[in-house]
């Protein structure tokens, strides 16, 4: 546990001593803020038009904003998580510090979990500021919108981000090159996104491909639904990613280093 904490501490220090974390978080928040204001303006305008033309139900502005906003955030994560994870192991391998970690009284699991928890913390740091302006919309909407939607959306984006980080760490552990790690991670995520494109609606293969598609499970969360399928999917995805990373570290000992 102490070893895990030491790794976690070091990783957090590393994120914030270099400009990398500041830039990634900054860019992320800037884009989020831009999309959010544009989105809110557009949806409110449409809502006004709808109510003025007097036709039908008024638009459920908070729910629509949440759905589109988190759709955008998920796309941003697709681009940014590979940059967060690319150096996690590849840099240690390149600098030779992996040898220090692997000859210290640390288990591979402690190393992997310590690093993963640090990247999760950074993900939370990225997401927290966005909560405030989303909450503002919910606070001021008439009639009051169900907060549940907002919370499930955050749960969803957190799980999605965690899954992407687990995948990225794994790819980072396979190479000494940060560039290769980030490109392969990016490609991997993209593939998992589009893997169900063009599949026929039903049938065994289609069902599998749709299940594997990493962003599909995310949609439910933005509608206020906690689907156990999605929970299990992300949990097993994260577990698999971390498990493979541990195996990958172990295999370094057996390869010619």
């Amino acid at each position, binding site marked *: 546990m*102490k*070893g895990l*904490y*030491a*790794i976690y*501490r*070091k990783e957090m*220090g*590393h994120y914030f*001593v*270099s400009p990398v974390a500041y830039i990634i978080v900054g860019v992320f928040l800037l884009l989020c803020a831009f999309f959010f204001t544009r989105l809110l303006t557009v949806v409110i305008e449409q809502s006004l038009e709808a109510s003025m033309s007097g036709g039908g139900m008024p638009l459920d502005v908070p729910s629509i904003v949440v759905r589109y906003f988190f759709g955008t955030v998920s796309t941003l994560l697709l681009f940014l998580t590979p940059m967060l994870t690319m150096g996690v192991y590849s840099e240690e391998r390149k*600098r*030779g*510090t*992996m*040898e*220090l*970690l*692997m*000859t*210290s*009284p*640390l*288990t591979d699991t402690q190393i992997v979990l310590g690093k993963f928890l640090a990247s999760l913390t950074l993900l939370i740091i990225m997401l927290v500021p966005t909560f405030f302006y989303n909450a503002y919309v919910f606070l001021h909407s008439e009639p009051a919108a169900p907060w549940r939607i907002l919370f499930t959306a955050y749960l969803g984006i957190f799980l999605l981000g965690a899954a992407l980080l687990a995948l990225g760490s794994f790819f980072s552990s396979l190479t000494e090159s940060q560039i290769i790690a980030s490109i392969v991670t990016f490609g991997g995520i993209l593939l998992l996104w589009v893997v169900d494109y063009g599949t026929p609606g039903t049938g065994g293969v289609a069902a599998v491909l749709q299940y594997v598609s990493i962003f599909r499970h995310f949609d439910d969360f933005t509608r206020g639904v906690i689907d156990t399928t999605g929970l299990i999917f992300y949990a097993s995805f994260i577990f698999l990613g971390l498990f493979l990373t541990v195996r990958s570290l172990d295999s370094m*000992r*057996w390869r*010619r*280093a």
Partner: protein
Amino acid sequence: MIEVQDLTKSFGDKTAVDHVSFTVNKGEILGFLGPNGAGKTTTMRILTGFLPATSGTARIAGFDVFNDSMEVRKRIGYLPEAPPLYTDMEVETYLDFVARIKNVPAERRKMLIENALVKTNIEDKRHDLIKRLSRGYKQRVGIAQALVHDPDVIILDEPTVGLDPKQIIEVRHLIKGLAGSHTIILSTHILPEVSMTCDRVVIINAGKVVAVDTPANLTMQLKGGQRVHLEAQAEEGVLRSALQEIPAIRRVDLEPAGGNGRVAATIESAQGEDVRSQVAAKIVGRGWPLFELRGVNLSLEDVFLQLTTEDSEHAAKPAN
């Protein structure tokens, strides 16, 4: 403290370490000497638990490096060939991190970090970013890292490589000062380093141990014969045949030295035989003027070269 028995490591069909056995006593400095690619780093990596051995055993403080890896790792400090530094950390932060991952309890951490800083003489650099340090200071931080948790065993892979002569001397002093309270293995391909710092030497070549002894004994005994240098005034042919009458002499090399018919001879004799008095008696008996007669000690360099080249010739034979 360290017992290595029949350690073998193969990468595919290449054997990097071949049935290596040696022991290191508590408080001793053992030099691991061999040309590049001899298997020094691989052996050290096995000892530190970084690589598993293909066969054979290695025990440190009674713990098997593979089966009790965690116990071993608590007891060793290791400086790999390239110091494992987080260059964007400050020296003190870095040592604190290393102390933490080595399970140093919080109440001892500060004191041990201080000790490491003092011993490696980098106290005034404690708040410097590691990336701003010179090569020599980086190396010292690497050594500080290896001893910060006060380990029983310190393993240093080529600790002086890439340093300037002054830094090399400093590092050697530092290592010598660590002996006694720590057991140390250091590898090098620089010979004087071994004779200056080490109590005992393991010479390794092509994965095999070719000699284990003290540096003095290695130069004295290991390489069979002794050499005598002679300068006398005599005719070459006659001198040669006269010298070859002495049974212990194996080889005589002659060459003219200066004018006046002086000849310089290098005489090699069988192991443990001192032929100097017999040679002197012979020359004087013939009435030749004798100008010089002295024993030549083989340097560690000669021993090393002979041991390692003999071995490679040996290894090459079956292939022919």
